[in-house]
């Protein structure tokens, strides 16, 4: 088995707020192999974004990480910014949801692209420009040379996201983290951008973490899927298994609640209630108030994330497959 590229071990992110301590991410263990495509799925407040922002030292000032976030064996938790800068922006890069806020509105895109190369590799400006132009062409910006000196506002949303992706890939990262990279885009443009992620990460051999709430996006791009709920990983499995035989009731409920062409509205099952308030997480399993398979133990004990078959883990006292087996 290949050694993991990036590994979270008992990793937590907490925020201190006037209302109290918010455990945004709690006790997470997860690893990513080189070249792998992992999707992290969850609703707002599930901790999916904060997990990776924390590892890269990009939390809001009241946020704090603990545990381990190892990149090629180096723990990024507690690392000084100067040391982090040798990893982030070069070996690990990130693409955000809104390309307009990810780009500096008062700098030409040429400057924003070349800066990254110059800072991290010490290349000359001419050399950096050449690399940046080549990357712009690669991400599908037509007439890259003509667009090289424009400002972000002169580009469409799809083009801006391509520029951001070009920035993220310029230093040939080993791990690219994309946080809802297509949520702000139209569906035809979303299809283009997802194709780009697929093709370029495999061409460069980079691992990809795609953070999303869209199961359609997950199905189209991921090898493996992690499902988060209330700050914890509740299920992890290869992509086909997640869709075909989800083991956690939340995963199944999520799949049953999305509109599908082969299913009438009457068969869509909404999940009752709403995602938990992290300040007042329910006792036991965070999903228990909304769970149809809840038993007494779910309200007092928190289920551990345990192996649930080949390459799978699930945190549930009554996982779905096991119940079927017991009944059979």
């Amino acid at each position: 088995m290949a050694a993991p590229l990036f590994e979270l071990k008992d990793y937590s992110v907490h925020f201190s707020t006037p209302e109290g301590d918010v455990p945004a991410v709690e006790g997470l263990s997860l690893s990513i192999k080189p070249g792998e495509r992992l999707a992290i799925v969850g609703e707002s407040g599930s901790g999916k974004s904060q997990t990776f922002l924390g590892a890269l030292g990009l939390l809001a000032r009241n946020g704090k990480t603990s545990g381990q976030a190892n990149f090629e064996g180096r723990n990024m938790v507690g690392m000084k910014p100067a040391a982090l800068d040798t990893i982030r922006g070069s070996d690990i890069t990130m693409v955000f949801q809104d390309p307009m806020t990810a780009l500096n509105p008062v700098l030409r895109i040429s400057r924003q692209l070349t800066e990254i190369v110059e800072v991290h590799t010490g290349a000359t400006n001419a050399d950096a420009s050449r690399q940046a132009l080549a990357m712009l062409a690669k991400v599908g910006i037509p007439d890259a040379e003509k667009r090289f000196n424009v400002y972000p506002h002169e580009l469409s949303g799809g083009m801006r996201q391509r520029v951001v992706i070009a920035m993220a890939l310029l230093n040939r990262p080993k791990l690219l983290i994309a946080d809802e990279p297509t949520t702000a885009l139209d569906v035809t443009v979303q299809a283009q951008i997802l194709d780009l992620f697929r093709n370029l990460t495999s061409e460069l051999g980079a691992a990809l973490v795609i953070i999303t709430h869209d199961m359609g996006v997950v199905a189209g791009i991921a090898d493996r899927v992690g499902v988060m709920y209330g700050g914890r990983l509740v299920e992890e499995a290869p992509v086909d298994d997640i869709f075909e035989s989800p083991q956690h009731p939340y995963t199944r409920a999520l799949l049953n609640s999305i509109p599908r062409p082969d299913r009438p509205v009457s068969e869509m099952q909404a999940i009752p209630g709403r995602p938990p308030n992290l300040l007042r997480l329910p006792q036991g399993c965070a999903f228990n108030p909304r769970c149809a398979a809840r038993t007494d133990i779910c309200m007092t004990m928190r289920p551990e994330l345990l192996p649930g078959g080949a390459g799978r883990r699930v945190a549930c006292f009554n996982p779905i497959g096991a119940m079927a087996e017991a009944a059979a």
Partner: protein
Amino acid sequence: MTKPLLEVDHLTTRFSVRSGKMFGKASSLTAVDDVSFTLNAGETLGIVGESGSGKSTLGRSVLRLVEAQAGSVVWQGGDLLKLSDEDMRKARRDMQIIFQDPLASLDPRMTVADIIAEPLQIAEPGLTRAQRLEEVQKIMAAVGLAPEMVNRYPHEFSGGQAQRIGIARAIITKPKLVICDEPVSALDVSIQAQIIQLLNRLRLELDLALIFISHDLSVVRLVCDRVMVLYLGRVVESGPSADVFAHPKHPYALALLSAVPLPDPKLARLRQRVILQGDPPSPINPPSGCVFRTRCVYVKDVCATARPVLEGGEHKAACHFAGQLTKSGEPEILNSSTNA
């Protein structure tokens, strides 16, 4: 045949925009370009399109929240566009709208009771305070809000609950038509299904006609009887949902459908997709002839010179080659331009 509830004919809405430069020349942007459709009582019409396609402007033009420049909106025999402000206000009790961002569409300084009662106050000024409150509590129960929450303020509610308030406010005057402008886009996935089911239930119970504006084709396919596809302000395809989704006639509709991410990894791998190149052109300076020609893989000379007419019986398309694309049942375009 019964008369349709709503008949929109050649509706055109333009906005005047200035170029970026100071004192720049004003030019006009045609957001809704010669759109015609009908809607029957109790029917659900989906309007789909990407940003800038004019779908929201179309909905707002029908309600005269923005003023159209040409065409007519015939509602129960009269043209809404010709009504005085006073008469329009009266007509609005029968037609309501639900917006995308549920919290932004609620006045933060009003209690839930006041927000929901406001349309009723205008529509039926004769009601006493107690009668209004009773109506409000009835409607809150109908949309799944605890009636005890009447005195709370919008910020105390989650997005899904706020959208329920928006829906309660829209249906309290017992309208015949509700325009839903991206009603679930801002909500979490698990909450979206709740709101879709609520709208579906209310529609059947109250015999509402819905105009469902959305960029999410999976939702539209489930909820709508008929669907209309907009591109740069023009209708490029319209027809019964089942037909349009199974056999799209217009190359844009085909590409749009094939771009929808399928929540099934095996199907997603098998699927041959039409991936459009580029972005939609600027509506300020739309292409001549067919507006889609700059991104169409089927483009021919005629597309630049002649504007295609929306035609074809129940299932219409505005494409010079509409009939030919679907000759074999399986559109040829699927085989000629895949990006597998």
